[in-house]
């Protein structure tokens, strides 16, 4: 049911904003990929590339392991933190929020500064235990197996999965159903662990499948993060592709495009395989459900994992802050020789990247929010499936694929290096996220509010602005904050669309990664963190203030 009583004309306009900002650019971008499908030279060159198989192996390893580990870690955290008598999981979700807001790239930069051979960790060990005077020959970042990259991915994705799981668990209907099932299972002799594994998780899993797919797809295709913390010989497949796409040789460009298609295909095959695996395993779990397990062990893991994760996030922010104001800081000193705000002054003095990121984030999240609300107000719920499918496509396809098609489209339209090109390249993923965040709460809005207000003869617009919007304030602000964060974190599509004319914070950070100014690098990573964090804090602050009917 459409919320505001609107004319047929306006209702017919409903899809135009989302189609113009999101669906059409996405579809046309994907069309522009098609010529590469039949470009045989690119594929031949790809399979002959000496690093292809090594890169593929590395990417499979880091992508699969990081997703599995993040899932397990999140599961343990949720199991440890959930009590059916209290509202703990909601508490957990609110803690996950700020962690989600930290862009992957900034997190990887900070984690690298913690665990690198000259990082804080080795300085602590050197100062208190071993007395090293030269940095240890640790292989913690840019290591051949991508362990550093896996660590960064796992730590960054765990809060996201925890947040998704808590979202499911905090729904009233789920909570009631689970509490009931739990008491039945307890009476059958199941322990807590067995209840989680055999009863609750198999029900949660299907509900968080899309977040998991997004996590996996991200881990397999991330470019910026792997550039700063991943290995180089060979690099991850996504980085190999990225180098080729930016190469000065035509053949390398074709090889990069072929690589994007191959990577997309591999992800699709793996996801299909995983889906089949899950399907064949689920009955197995249910079959065992009737018979309680023989040896009951207590909840095994008592390690405060969630606390450890939170501490690591704190450590990352701390080291970035310290490094950004440090002057000369030789190993193994725990403190820099002097502290200076030089890097911050420089960052703000040449403030364009910060400002560009801020303007893009504000404009794209606002535009996406308006477009999505317009759709939700004018189109009946049954059409949402189409939008959700487009969103899933946008979030699960490798960003490299969309960005490449978009770059080709922009070239034809003369949009590379223009402000509109930058806006469009950012608003696409932002709209996808905003719609996904908003759709549930918006459609779940209780229609009885409308009837009540009809009863007091409130006008349609009055109802909308005085009652509906205030009631939906929290999800609206939340979706805007997510959109804002997504915009700030864009790298691949932004870099291609910018044609050097624009620089955003992640682009600046990646450029600085190849330089040797660590304080400035840290400051730019911190700036990259601060923007989305502010958005989240503002959103949650304003969500809390009570709605007063008026």
């Amino acid at each position, binding site marked *: 049911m459409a919320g505001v009583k609107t004319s047929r004309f306006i209702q017919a306009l409903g899809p135009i904003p989302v189609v113009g900002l999101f669906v059409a650019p996405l579809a046309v971008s994907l069309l522009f990929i098609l010529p590469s499908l039949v470009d045989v030279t690119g594929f031949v060159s790809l399979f002959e590339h*000496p*690093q292809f*198989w*090594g890169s593929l192996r*590395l990417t499979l390893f880091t992508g699969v392991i990081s997703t599995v580990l993040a899932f397990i870690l999140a599961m343990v955290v949720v199991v440890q933190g959930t009590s059916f008598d209290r509202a703990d999981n909601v508490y957990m979700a609110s803690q996950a929020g700020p962690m989600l807001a930290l862009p992957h790239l900034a997190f990887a930069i900070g984690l690298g500064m913690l665990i690198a*051979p*000259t990082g804080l960790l080795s300085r602590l060990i050197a100062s208190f235990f071993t007395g090293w*005077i*030269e*940095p240890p*020959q640790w*292989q913690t970042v*840019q*290591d*051949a197996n991508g362990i550093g990259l896996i660590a960064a991915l796992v730590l960054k994705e765990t809060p996201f999965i925890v947040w998704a799981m808590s979202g499911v668990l905090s729904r009233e209907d789920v909570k009631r159903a689970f509490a009931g099932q739990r008491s039945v299972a307890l009476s059958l002799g199941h322990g807590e662990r067995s209840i989680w594994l055999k009863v609750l998780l198999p029900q949660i899993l299907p509900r968080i499948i899309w977040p998991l797919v997004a996590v996996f797809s991200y881990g397999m295709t991330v470019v910026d993060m792997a550039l700063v913390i991943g*290995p*180089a*010989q*060979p690099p991850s497949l996504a980085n190999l592709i990225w180098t080729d796409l*930016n*190469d*000065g*040789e*035509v053949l390398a*460009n074709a090889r990069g495009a072929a690589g994007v298609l191959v990577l997309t295909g591999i992800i699709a095959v793996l996801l299909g395989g995983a889906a089949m695996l899950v399907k064949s395993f689920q009955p197995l779990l249910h079959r065992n459900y009737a018979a309680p397990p023989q040896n009951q062990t207590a909840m095994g893991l008592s390690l405060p994992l969630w606390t450890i994760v939170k501490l690591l996030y704190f450590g990352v922010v701390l080291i970035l802050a310290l490094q950004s104001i440090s*002057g*000369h800081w*030789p*190993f193994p000193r725990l403190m820099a020789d002097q502290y200076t705000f030089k890097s911050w002054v420089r960052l703000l003095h040449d403030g364009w990247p910060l400002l560009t990121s801020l303007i893009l984030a504000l404009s794209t999240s606002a535009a996406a929010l308006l477009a999505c609300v317009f759709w939700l107000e004018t189109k009946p719920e049954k059409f949402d499936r189409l939008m959700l499918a487009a969103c899933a496509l946008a979030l699960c396809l490798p960003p490299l694929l969309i960005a490449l098609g978009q770059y080709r489209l922009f*070239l*034809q339209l*003369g949009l*590379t*290096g223009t402000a509109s090109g930058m806006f469009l390249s950012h608003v696409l993923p932002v709209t996808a996220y905003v719609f996904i965040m908003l759709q549930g709460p918006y459609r779940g809005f209780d229609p009885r509010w409308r009837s009540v207000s009809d009863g007091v003869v409130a006008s349609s617009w009055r109802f909308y602005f005085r009652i509906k919007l205030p009631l939906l304030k929290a999800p609206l602000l939340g979706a805007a904050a997510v959109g804002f964060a997504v915009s700030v974190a864009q790298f691949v599509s932004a870099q291609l669309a910018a*044609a*050097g*004319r624009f*620089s955003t914070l992640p682009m*600046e950070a*990646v*450029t600085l990664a*190849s*330089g*040797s*100014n*660590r304080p*400035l690098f840290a400051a730019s990573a911190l700036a990259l963190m601060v923007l989305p964090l502010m958005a989240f804090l503002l959103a949650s602050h304003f969500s809390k203030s009570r709605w007063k009917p008026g």
Partner: protein
Amino acid sequence: MFSRRSFLKTTLAASSLALTSRLAFAADWAFVENAAVGQTVYFNAWAGADNINAYIAWAGAEAEKRYGVKVEHVKITDTAEVVKRVRDEVAAGKTDGSVDLVWINGENFRAMKQEKLLFGPFAEALPNFALVDVEGKPTTRQDFSETVDGLESPWGMAQFTFFADGAKVAKPPRSMMELAAFSKANPGRVTYPAPPDFYGTTFLKQALFEQTPDRSTLYQAAEPGTAGMLTTDLFSGFLDELHRSLWRDGKQFPKTQAEVTQMVADGELLIGLTFNPNEPANLVAAGTLPASTIAWQHAAGTIGNTHFVAIPVNAKAQAGAQVFANFLLSPEAQAKKNDLKTWGDPTVLAVSKLSSEDAKMFMADAVPGSVSLPGPAVLEPHASWVGALEKAWLERYGRG
């Protein structure tokens, strides 16, 4: 459909550009300076070092003050990106290209020259070109065995140079063989950036020079047969052994020279490398490296070259780009660039051609970190060796 349309657009664009470039070239300098006023020059330049970025910012501010030309530094990590972008834009018929000036040399210049992606000739018509030391510094007209033909304007000189903390490295290795011995004695403390990083490739070229008795083949285009033989000899005869003692056992390599420099500053590595002989002194002055830093070149010589600025054929601000390129060649801008406190990049000018007042700006005393053991400059091999070496290296060492 797209291909035909873009073909048409490209042809049209190319012919109109050819016309404008001829006109611009024929016109006198005052005309160029007039046309440049109010233009914004998007200068695409590698931005991996602070001091260089700061210098470009200074030069841009001066150009705006003096000539009304606004300069925007487009910070890039690899010039190959610019080659690709210009090619894509020209192919899509974009005449108001995103690049007005690019910092370039070697294989990127060769690619752009061969594909006719460059505006010009313009360089030798710049008023300040008369001051360039074309006799003493032949690489100002010969870029990696490719004739420049006025398609790029010289900006600075470079020579491959090594540096270390003299307190830790008492006797610096003056050849690749000595470097290998040093690395063996200090396992895990020496490395070089992975090719195709510019510095990594130069390291390979330097090793190739020192391991190849007859250098004349290196000045001809790399034929697959000869190149294959020479690189195989280099790898099995020298690099395989060297890699065993390198940082991370020669299995991983830093991605950039700046990373190597950072690791030297941290003490994680003992020897750093650079293309700018004055960089170590500059880093000492900046406080990044200790005052005990020493710099040297190999006794039998190290690779030297010139770096340039070029204007793409579809540049929007072609006049502004020429005015800025001319300013970069001025004694004042070259002296400031030469100054260790700013950048320390050696000049392309012949100091003897300057007025005594201008020449004074180029005098400098030895400071901590300046090259104490110099070697002669060796000309770059033919540009095609870059690709051949990078490919062979990737085949052998890039698999992990």
